[in-house]
């Protein structure tokens, strides 16, 4: 038995003192974590369970929920349902926004760690500032920048000789890429820059010195030394970016496009809000939430499984 472990009071001969000691060592700690457990049950576990149960009901926030078995799921996955469009865009948005935001954050962090460069503090500030601008203000600014008639982007295009600039936010083939690229301005993208920045500072300098002596180019050094060394951080950022893209895409998409034109940029998080609070189909929205939860779980599981092949925890 390891030191400090306490055997349970199985004998009648145990003294009151031993009982007290047992309680102090084995049960009292649970009282310290009890507030968190209560919070989890009330504010996380409970709502998750309630969401699952409500996904099998029809409820308009007026009368009591009506049990409809799996009707909400059947309706979502029936042929011709708009939910397929929502799922397709969600997959597209998640994959490309993760690539875009993680790639951009890594690129910025790499620039900040460039050797023999001056004024890095100033650059750090400018790189991080967009991440702390409220998303609503940012999207409003982009609505104006990208406006077909009054936008500054099309104005610059006319100076370059383009007579009719694109209608950026309502052209389906363009707007999907715009919302992906704008991810670099989100808070979690800014956060990733900071995380990558500190990770890059931890990579042993002697590895680069040795590589330089061997004649390795900067690109080779980045691919063979930097990336493997920070692979756990890349992995961590990819997982968080994936979950953020799935669940918090709402904050970017709702004020920027509101899911339009049609349902072209309607991500699942936006559809959940729309169904729950704009059409008051709470059961339907809960079914979508359960599907979103499942997608996030499967995506995370997939990433954790494949990470064994490319994440190195020891350099």
């Amino acid at each position, binding site marked *: 038995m390891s030191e400090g472990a306490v055997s349970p009071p199985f004998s009648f001969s145990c003294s009151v003192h031993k009982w007290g000691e047992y309680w102090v060592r084995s049960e009292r700690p649970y009282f310290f974590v009890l507030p968190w457990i209560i919070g989890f049950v009330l504010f996380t576990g409970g709502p998750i369970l309630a969401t699952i149960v409500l996904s099998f009901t029809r409820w308009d926030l007026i009368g009591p929920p009506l049990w409809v078995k799996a009707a909400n799921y059947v309706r979502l996955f029936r042929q011709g349902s708009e939910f397929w469009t929502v799922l397709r865009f969600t997959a597209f948005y998640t994959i490309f926004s993760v690539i875009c935001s993680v790639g951009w954050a890594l690129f910025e962090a790499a620039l900040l760690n460039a050797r023999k460069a001056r004024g890095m503090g100033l650059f750090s500030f400018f790189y991080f500032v967009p991440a702390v601008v409220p998303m609503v203000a940012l999207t409003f600014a982009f609505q104006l920048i990208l406006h077909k*008639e009054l936008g500054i982007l099309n104005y610059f295009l006319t100076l370059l000789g383009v007579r009719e600039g694109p209608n950026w936010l309502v052209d389906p083939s363009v707007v999907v890429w715009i919302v992906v690229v704008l991810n670099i301005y989100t808070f979690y993208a800014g956060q990733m820059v900071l995380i990558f920045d500190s990770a890059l500072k931890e990579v042993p300098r002697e590895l680069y010195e040795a590589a330089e002596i061997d004649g390795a180019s900067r690109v080779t050094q980045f691919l063979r030394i930097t990336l493997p060394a920070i692979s756990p951080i890349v992995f961590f950022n990819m997982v968080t970016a994936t979950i953020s893209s799935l669940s918090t895409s709402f904050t970017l998409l709702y004020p920027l496009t*509101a899911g339009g034109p*049609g349902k072209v940029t309607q991500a699942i998080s936006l559809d959940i809000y*729309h169904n729950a609070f*704009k*059409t*008051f189909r709470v059961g339907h929205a809960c079914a979508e939430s359960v599907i979103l939860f499942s997608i996030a779980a499967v995506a995370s599981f997939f990433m954790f499984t494949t990470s064994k092949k490319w994440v190195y925890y020891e350099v």
Partner: protein
Amino acid sequence: MQRIVIVGMLLGMFVLLGTCASSAAVIRYAHWNALPSDPYNYVKAFEEKNPDIKVEFIQIPEAEYSQKLRSMAMTGTAPDVLCLWEADLADFVRAGWVTSLDAYIKQSKELSLDDFIPAVTQLMELQGSLYGFPWCFATEIAYYNKDLFDKAGVAYPEIDWTFEDFEDAAEKLTLQSEGKVTQWGCDAIGFQGLWYSLAGTFGDKIVDEQGRFSMGSGTREFLQRWFDLTNVSKVVASPQVTTSGVVSADLFMAGKAAMAFNGSWMASVYKDITDFTWDIMLLPQSKRSYSTLHTGFFAINARSEVKDAVWKFIEFCMSDEGQKLINTAYSNPSARLSILKKGYYKVEGPKGPRNWDAIERTAEFAEWGYVLLPPGLTFDIVKDFNAAILGQLSIDDVLEGAVAKAVDILGEEKVAQE
């Protein structure tokens, strides 16, 4: 002993004062707008007039207003006075969460149903009883740039102008330079309600007498005409992204569009224009005159224990004194005809508007229409309307989709089939 007696007397006095203070009835009142500052604070004016009633004001942000009130009503914590949006009023009536006001209005010396705009009694007929009073109202109208009309030598829109007049004016007012439009005849539809109002002018009921969703041939014809104006004759600007039913950039305000259709509330925004003179007019009619009304309804929570005090508050808000404060503070007209005529809502800018008759005339025929439907449904359909004008969806597909969505959300019995 003497000290004990004094302390006892003091305690007794405090208890008595406390009892007196708590004898004032307290009513809870929720609204999405903050209360206006003095001298337009109608809640303060009511309290001054009724010292025996205190109003506890709750501001609920507009974005979560509807769902918050529903949650409060479900859990029995809803405010005593509810200011309900049109679509919510129907649901609250269905759930039995609001009290009928029939008995109250019968005995009221201040209010009479004959004194309200026609849409109020129409809604009463639809719901079988009177459940709410519009706290003020807004509608949808046309805006035009008088300077651009003058420059092009085009006559100003008149009270009975038609959609053909509008098309003709838009064509004459559009200017091009090197193949690029530099001045639009009309801005794209900026507020979602206009899609329904203009479709209504083409004959669709939008919401029929039985409260059913009703869109069909009128909408088809309007969409086709609007598509041609946007893409064939190119006199109407291309649709822009619409979030929450409102666009961020306004070509009319920028002086780059000669006409625009929007809510009457935009008059209080455009009043700051100093670059050009402008005015307002009714929406052009096609098969009929039509526009949509917007409001919030003062209603009494059925579970309220201070219903009489609540009625006093509503009666004050709907009185001449209360309406004057509300109309002036929010620049919205009164739904009471006698007060509407007094024009408390008129806030003119240096360059416009002047033709307030447009709002008063609109109130005579305007209907609740699409606002009686869940906002999620109507907003979703508008996104498809935009897609149709952009050529991304066919008009027939959009209409089929609109009916399918309505059936999905409202149920088959709530959708009129053409």
